[in-house]
């Protein structure tokens, strides 16, 4: 694939459809919020929907789908690794929530 071919997209009609899809996901997020789920369930739902939106945006709006696979494989694993390493803060956060002073 040449650079010119990689830059080709599907056209504005398709992008308008994607935009409508993204707005629908935002609407679902608001509906889920007002179902008054427990905080943990709400967080899981909102994160799933946010990652779905982000994936659609990166893939179509940022045209990553139309670039070489080498670019995708150079960018995504590095990001996933860093986020995975950051994910190790949670046990400490829960420890802070339940921390008590030592008995005198």
């Amino acid at each position: 694939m040449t650079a010119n071919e990689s830059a080709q997209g599907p056209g504005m009609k398709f992008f308008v459809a994607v935009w409508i899809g993204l707005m629908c996901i935002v609407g679902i997020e608001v509906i889920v919020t007002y179902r008054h789920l427990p905080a943990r369930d709400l967080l899981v739902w909102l994160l799933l929907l946010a990652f779905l939106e982000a994936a659609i945006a990166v893939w179509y709006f940022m045209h990553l789908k139309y670039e070489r696979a080498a670019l995708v494989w150079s960018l995504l694993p590095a990001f996933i690794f860093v986020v995975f390493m950051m994910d190790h803060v949670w046990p400490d956060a829960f420890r802070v929530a339940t921390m008590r002073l030592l008995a005198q």
Partner: protein
Amino acid sequence: MSDMEMSAGAGGHAGVMEESPFAIPSGKLAMWCFVLSDAVTFSAVLFAYGYLRVGSADWSTPFQFVPSVLNGLVMTFVLLTSGLTMLAAVEAAKAGRTAAGTRWLWATCALGALFAGMHLMEWRHMIEEGWRMFQNPLGGSVHFGAAFFSITGLHLLHVLGGVVALAVIALGFPSGKYNRIDVEITGIYWHFVDLVWMFVFPLVYLMNAK
């Protein structure tokens, strides 16, 4: 002229050099690297927010549907629409329709400025209610203000930077100072700003809705 030649300059050494493994201009690769590093920055800020929230027993959830969540919804609509106008600018630039591309760039710029204005109004409303970086008028954790103003402030800074960048490209695109590659590169940045909001709105606004 190919993207690579346009990036290197028609009179450069593009013809005798080995092709880039990604087959994209160096400017575009640099923007992708910036987006990657900035995504890590925003991830760190959102993790810090999560840490504070989990670690605070008295976390406040102050956002009522009207005005805060509704305002956030309208801001999301404005920013997502600006992503669409940015795509129209890129498509027009790729098709060689310079005038249309410039118009769509200005439309994106205007929507970005509208988003920033709405965000500042939201801040003003909260500050009038007594919220500060380390002050909570509801009496709960003072970290709420720090997290809210830091995350939304960092995003707002990116939006304002994007609006300036879009205006500079829109001014130079008709005269040929900037080409379609520059429009595409600015587009990647603008869509990233859009993408970050897709996390900020649910995590900062909806998770703190009453």
